[in-house]
């Protein structure tokens, strides 16, 4: 019985962590460029609604995912003219973007409320999924789950080992120096927003296509904000973001498992855990965080007082 519980929990945790992971990975790129996007929630909603709607209409999940990624990228870019072009307050702009995402996804998703779609199903890997105990947990997941680790590695490589990534990080640290070095600071930040949006869009799509298999208004329920906190929690490292997402997903899945077994613990207390843990870790890691935070972000946070 206990083994069943753990299996269910771990498998569920991995699944639940995936949307948040992609959104947080995208936001990592954005924040490394010195911007903070509180509107990730909106981007995820756009991805979730578009992914579902297009899959439903065309009958192809692949097309749906591409559409979600594309429109997620475009949506995130809307922040660009505000915060890069006009230098507007990033926190307020992000929340405006969130509202927009909520509205747009509700509006265009209206026709699809209540419908279901097969979406993205689990893909059992040939030999690996038969490995005792671990097999069903790790290797009977859907494609996007499998792509999480490669995505994290890809972004890690992109940021740390390419010229583009180097210039991007320079922009996030000190725009003046980056400019002196010849970087196109505006273009780089727009590109970061686009990539961030693509990933967040995919994260949202995973939620509607692989987990819920349906669309409802506000399906993300704050996951976008958790993703933003996660990035700080992970000290802006793509690989640690994976870990953080798993912890979150684990807490989400734990609640489901416990409830299914009629456990005594209040689901609400469990539900609070991810947020409280995040807060505790953020406070605990404050010195280390400050050490790792891109300098450009510090301006946004340490506004005054």
């Amino acid at each position, binding site marked *: 019985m206990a083994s069943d519980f753990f299996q269910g929990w771990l498998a569920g945790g991995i699944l639940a962590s995936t949307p948040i992971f992609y959104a947080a990975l995208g936001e990592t790129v954005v924040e490394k460029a010195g911007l903070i996007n509180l509107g990730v929630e909106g981007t995820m909603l756009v991805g979730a609604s578009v992914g579902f709607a297009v899959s439903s209409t065309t009958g192809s999940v692949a097309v749906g995912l591409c559409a979600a990624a594309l429109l997620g990228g475009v949506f995130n870019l809307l922040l660009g003219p505000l915060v890069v072009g006009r230098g*507007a*307050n990033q926190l307020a702009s992000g929340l405006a973007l969130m*509202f927009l995402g909520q*509205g747009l996804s509700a509006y265009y998703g209206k026709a699809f409320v209540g419908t279901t779609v097969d979406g993205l199903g689990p893909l059992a890997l040939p030999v690996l999924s038969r490995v005792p105990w671990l097999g069903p947990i790790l290797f009977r997941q859907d494609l996007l789950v499998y792509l999480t680790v490669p995505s994290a590695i890809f972004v890690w490589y992109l940021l740390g080992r390419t010229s583009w990534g180097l210039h991007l990080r320079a922009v996030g640290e000190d725009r003046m120096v980056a400019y002196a070095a010849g970087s196109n600071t505006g273009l780089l930040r727009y590109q970061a927003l686009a990539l961030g949006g693509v990933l967040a869009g995919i994260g949202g799509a995973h939620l509607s296509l692989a987990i819920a298999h349906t669309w409802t208004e506000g399906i993300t329920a704050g996951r976008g904000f958790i993703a933003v*906190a996660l990035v700080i929690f992970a000290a802006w490292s793509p690989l640690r973001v994976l870990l953080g997402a798993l912890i979150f997903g684990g807490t989400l899945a734990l609640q489901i498992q416990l409830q299914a077994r009629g456990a005594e613990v209040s689901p609400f207390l469990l539900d609070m855990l991810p947020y409280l843990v995040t807060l505790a870790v953020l406070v605990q890691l*404050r010195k280390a965080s400050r050490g790792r935070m891109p300098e450009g972000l510090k301006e946004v946070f340490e506004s005054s007082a």
Partner: protein
Amino acid sequence: MLALRNRSALALDAGLLAGALLLFSLLLLTSGKNPLDTYGSLLRSTLGSAYGLSEVVVKLIPLLFTALAVALPARLGLVNVGGEGQLHLGALFAASAALSLGPGTPGWLGLPAGALAGMLGGAAWAFAPALLRSLGWLNETISTLLLNYVALRVVDFFVYGALRDPGSANVPQTKAFGPGFLWPAFTGRVHVGIALGLLALALAAVLLFLTRWGYEIRAIGGNPVAAHRHGLPLAATTIAVLCAGGALAGLAGTGEIMAIQGRLRPHFSADFGYLGFLISWLAGHRPLRILVMGFLVAVIATGGDSLQLDQGLPSATVNILMALLLFVVLAREGKRGV
């Protein structure tokens, strides 16, 4: 020269606003809706009838408080996104007070007790983020945002648990509050909260521009370095103002359950906290402008509710319009915005 600046600024404002409305109209067109129909429906359901107008006012009441909850800290340069959570805790504290004191409590005790409890709850919820910020440990934007989600669960915990009404089996809610706690209405659903809200706005304006504390708040917000060098108490002011904001949001929550709902239920807030944030930013955090912007947003939000019935559009559609308006204001202010 000044007149010219004002005229062109106004023209720019009007142009940007028109742009936002145009975009929204285009959006409606893309899914086959006639924008004129939608605007018409929006206006008719809100300003077109006495009932509509009263619903707008009812929506406005909590928004005035939650907007102030953002505006006051914003004067210090702080970003309080925790209105949603603070109003929930305010409601929770008020509900607890009402239920502990019992249904027989007279109005002269019940009303102030409820209100004070509500303010205490909201302030308490803002205290931890305030402290963390004043110590320089954690930015208040993140902490208040995360605590919003915790607050929802805290309320759920009590409503499904200790405060649950055993009489209503399938519906999670508390017992109804005694009549001594309920906020009286002027007419229909429009309750005293409107008077309190207007009073709060006036008091906020007085506080900021007439009193010594307002002076200190504006000085610290304007240049914390200079203020600190001249002995102004940064940490104490930060905590006081954030908690005051929390108290105001708490009052918003109290009003909703004491005047409209009559008991505490989960999800009683229609995004009042976030809308308040929106309003305060649209209003440049100025108390009197909050009234104007608050009314505008209340019209849009209320109109949105009936869009569902009228036009078959989800109520969240109006979020698009509100977001566009905020985009416009932010783009216009640029770096000069708080």
